[in-house]
């Protein structure tokens, strides 16, 4: 009943027979094993720290950690108050609310400092007395004269203007500094829940505001929230996609049920494994669930489709199952293996969540590979599967017509599609790498909408410079202070800088205060000892939660300058900013130059770091996959030739992206290797059929192409639709990096089929013309077809 068998066929037939005989045991064992591994998922946690995206060796992370070790390691909430009635901040009604939140924010979990216009330590002189007091000593109880004086004081203060108060006094911000023990992942959500409750409480008694909350704690929390949101929206969507595609493909509810079993068990195994090895889900890694569901359903559908076709051809169900396992064993093994290689290559990524993403996906694909050849046949043997007759002849004739068209116009198509591909590839340099953490989240996320509102009024991306004087106590050297002031002024003059915090401003204020508030003394002290003594005085007057160490390092050899960049800057303009900053130092103060740092600076280079680290990973994947192709096709030249239809779609997809979208975040680095592992499947199937026709059936190249189209064309189209649908689901992720990964992969998969159909035949014909047929060996080859030949 089975055709002439190879040893591999013998093995797969034996496997299928055993699985069918022991079907109850196989199903029980598979479910039990998956359920056991899935218990590990109980350990899974969401990371809520943006640092997760950087490896320990990442140069930008190291700079930032050095900086934080020297000054302060902290996170923040930024509460922004915008009166809805258009009133200004300096009214008793408004200040009462600001004062209340300022007081209560001290009680937020992990809060170590609260800064607002009301509690700003305002200093002034009264003769030889230096008075230090809250800028608004009794919020809500000021006289009209006091209110206008407070407003004037706040707007004249460089440390407040544009940082905590807008120049028109229309909007104000309260900054809450938090220091997390970092012992539990529940710390950030706990603090955020308290911050939101505080906002609700203030709005209850002071409804005249809109209050937005941003800051690094909200960013960190958003990473966790995006994952939870994705799980609750994308997974149901994906299950829907699976049900629709499976029912369309196999037209059987019971088979769809069996497919769901395979994909869900594969996902359980992968997520359980992730929990056992202690992976913390972050960014792209939870998307592994969608990827596994997609790739597992593709495996299962291949088995089901072959079985269906065999049954329609008159085989009994049991024989059809065995035939399907025999036919698909090698194909599923090769495609699973190449896909695993593509995902494992993500281990070279600089971003640990991408490594996790690759490994979780690889485990899931491995599970799907095993389950679709064991669990699935066993379930199919247990449940009734009916097949309705479909007019396959119509489908085949459509494909034959298409194949004829391709063969007839192969040169035009080869040249045309090559030119189109080249044109797309030529667009690649126009891709702009873009990682701005505000835009990592879509409009469904509060962090995004609140931050969008905040950047209307204040700067957003704090960029830090540690300016080193080179000697202990050197920060009070007048020459150093003068350069510090020059740098701060240069920064302030820039359009992309919203605010600059420099110790020079404090020096100028103290100099004025200690000279009886004479405005002529609002300048830097000219004597090093005087400046040092001012600093000592300043230190002695600091309120709770503040020390100078967050601005000046411990031996007073360096100070920190913070330039808050506008929220609408992009990665390209930040790079320009950094370049111009370097140029400023080179020209004006080469001895003071140091690296700029800060969260957004880290993200500015994240794509570049990941692309650099993935070059090796992707190269290894390409070589490994080419090798697998050579073995699978038993031909070195064909293996090499296969790399054209494998590699071109990825390059073309980048080009298409450049033309259609333009900017892309750091997921761009991961797409090449994982997409390669996936799109290779189409080429494997097409080329195996083509080679078999040439070798076994001794068909001419054009006929072999027709044969390939007729036998696997439909399966390839179907496969492509499933994969595109699965990755397209990712584009609905609230996290932009996942959405881009999904869309870019969808595009690549679509282009891969287009290139396989339009460009590959022309290439094969060209290759065949230049090659002596006698060079082809005529050994039998493994049959890796999806559906038995109808010819």
């Amino acid at each position: 009943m089975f055709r002439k068998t190879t040893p591999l066929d013998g093995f797969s037939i034996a496997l299928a027979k055993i699985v069918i005989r022991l079907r109850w045991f196989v199903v029980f064992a598979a479910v039990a094993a998956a359920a056991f591994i899935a218990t590990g998922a109980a350990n899974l946690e969401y990371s809520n720290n943006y640092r997760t995206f950087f490896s320990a060796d990442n140069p930008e992370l190291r700079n930032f950690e050095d900086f934080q070790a020297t000054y302060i390691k902290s996170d923040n909430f930024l509460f922004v108050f915008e009166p809805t009635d258009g009133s200004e901040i300096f009214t008793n009604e408004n200040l009462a609310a600001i004062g209340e939140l300022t007081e209560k924010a001290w009680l937020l979990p992990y809060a170590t400092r609260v800064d607002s216009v009301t509690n700003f330590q305002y200093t002034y002189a009264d003769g030889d007395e230096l008075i230090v007091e809250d800028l608004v000593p009794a919020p809500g109880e000021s006289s009209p004269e006091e209110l206008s004086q407070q407003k004037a004081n706040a707007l004249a203060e460089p440390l407040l203007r544009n940082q905590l108060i807008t120049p028109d006094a229309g909007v104000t911000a309260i900054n809450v500094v938090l220091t997390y023990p970092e012992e539990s992942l529940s710390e950030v959500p706990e603090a955020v829940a308290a911050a939101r409750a505080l906002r609700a409480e203030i709005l209850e008694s002071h409804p005249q505001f809109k209050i937005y909350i941003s800051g690094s704690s909200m960013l960190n929390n958003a990473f966790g929230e995006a994952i939870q949101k994705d799980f609750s929206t994308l997974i149901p969507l994906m299950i829907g996609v699976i049900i629709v595609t499976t029912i369309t493909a196999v037209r059987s509810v019971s088979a769809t049920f069996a497919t769901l079993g395979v994909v869900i068990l594969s996902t359980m195994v992968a997520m359980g494994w992730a929990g056992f090895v202690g992976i913390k889900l972050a960014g792209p890694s939870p998307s592994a669930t969608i990827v596994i569901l997609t790739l597992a359903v593709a495996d299962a559908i291949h088995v089901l489709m072959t079985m269906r076709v065999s049954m329609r051809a008159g085989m009994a169900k049991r024989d059809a199952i065995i035939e399907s396992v025999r036919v698909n064993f090698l194909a599923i093994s090769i495609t699973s293996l190449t896909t695993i290689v593509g995902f494992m290559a993500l281990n070279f990524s600089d971003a640990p969540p991408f490594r996790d993403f690759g490994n979780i996906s690889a485990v899931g694909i491995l599970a799907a590979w095993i389950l679709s050849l064991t669990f699935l046949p066993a379930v199919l043997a247990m449940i009734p599967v009916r097949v309705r007759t479909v007019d396959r002849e119509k489908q085949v004739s459509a494909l034959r017509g298409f194949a004829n068209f391709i063969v007839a116009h192969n040169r035009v198509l080869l040249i045309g599609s090559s030119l189109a591909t080249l044109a797309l590839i030529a667009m690649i340099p126009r891709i702009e790498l873009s990682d701005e953490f505000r835009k990592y989240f879509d409009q469904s996320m509060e962090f995004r909408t609140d931050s969008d509102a905040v950047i209307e009024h204040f700067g957003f991306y704090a960029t830090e410079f540690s300016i080193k004087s080179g000697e202990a106590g050197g920060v009070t050297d007048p020459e150093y202070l003068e350069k510090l002031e020059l740098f701060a002024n240069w920064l302030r003059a820039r359009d992309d800088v919203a605010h600059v915090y420099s110790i020079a401003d404090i020096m100028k204020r103290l100099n004025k205060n200690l000279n009886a508030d004479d405005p002529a003394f609002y300048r830097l002290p000219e004597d090093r000892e005087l400046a040092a003594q001012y600093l000592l005085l300043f230190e002695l007057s600091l309120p709770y939660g503040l020390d100078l160490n967050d601005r000046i390092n411990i031996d007073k050899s360096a100070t920190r300058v913070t330039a808050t960049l506008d929220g609408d800057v992009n990665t390209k303009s930040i790079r320009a900013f950094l370049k111009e900053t370097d140029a400023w130092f080179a020209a004006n103060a080469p001895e003071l130059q140091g690296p700029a740092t800060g969260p957004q600076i880290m993200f500015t280079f994240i794509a570049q770091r990941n692309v650099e680290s993935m070059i090796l990973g992707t190269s290894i994947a390409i070589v490994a996959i080419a090798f697998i192709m050579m073995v699978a096709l038993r031909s070195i030249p064909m293996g090499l030739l296969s790399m054209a239809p494998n590699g071109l779609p990825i390059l073309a997809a980048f080009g298409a992206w450049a033309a259609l979208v333009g900017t892309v975040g750091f997921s761009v680095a991961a797409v090449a290797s994982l997409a390669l592992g996936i799109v290779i499947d189409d080429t494997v199937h097409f080329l195996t059929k083509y080679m078999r026709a040439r070798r076994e059936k001794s068909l001419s190249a054009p006929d072999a192409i027709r044969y390939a189209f007729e036998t696997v064309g439909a399966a390839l189209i179907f496969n492509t639709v499933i994969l595109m649908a699965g990755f397209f689901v990712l584009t609905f992720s609230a996290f932009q990096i996942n959405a881009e990964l999904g869309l870019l992969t969808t595009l690549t998969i679509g282009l891969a089929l287009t290139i396989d159909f339009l460009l590959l035949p022309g290439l094969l014909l060209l290759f065949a013309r230049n090659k002596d047929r006698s060079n082809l060996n005529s050994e039998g080859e493994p049959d890796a077809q999806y559906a038995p030949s109808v010819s």
Partner: protein
Amino acid sequence: MLNMRLPFRSAASALGIFVLASAPAFADDPAARGDTPEAQKGYDVSARSDRTDTGFGDSRVDARMVLTNRAGQQTVREFSFQTLEKEDESVGDKSLVVFDSPRDVEGTALLSHAKILDPDDQWLYLPALKRVKRISSKNKSGAFVGSEFAFEDFTISELNKFTYSYVGEEDVDGMVMDVVERFPRYENSGYTKQKSWVDQEIFQVRKVEFYDRKGALLKTLVLSDYRDYDGVWRAHSLKMVNAQNGKETELVYSEFSFRNGLDGNDFEQGVLTRLR
């Protein structure tokens, strides 16, 4: 000199600011002593610790502070203290701090007259400016010269600035300790609570925990190297570790010198300009 009575009066005494002599008769402040048995026992334990070390008149000591940040970098601040003991518990001590290093601030001097519930009076002399400046600030609980000691920790050491609650006994390092919590009565404190461990042999404070406004542990002070000055004990090593930011400061005293014949005139504003 700054009356280095850290958090507690008892801790302060441990710092070596007071000394023996015939202990004057003290009158308890009923508002500070409270009316529950726990409050009164806490007050009494603190009062005993505090009062055993009084009557020293005045003291002088050199101090060296080593600051360590999260990166492990260190820096040193040196200064000297003079303290004039208060007349009774309704007022505070007078103190004078003169900075020796870093060199840029050498000769800078801070004179403080501690109050019980009101902000302290303070004057600062800046040698480079050659002027004395009075500093008026209610909110001085920030870091003292960049250390983990708050200014508040130095100037709020009066028994009656707090209410108390006795927690119980604890065995620590082979010593039986009384554990007492205390709560600031004055405004603008950085703390909601302090918890101290007082040994039952020489009645000295061995450890203090400081809790911030939201009730979380902020920092821990460990006092050691107690030395006996004719029956009065002084700790010579005080280590403050910040539980939230990972920084620490170690304060080390030289030998104390007591009863140097100082009087109120040595702690008046005018003395600041004549220090050198």
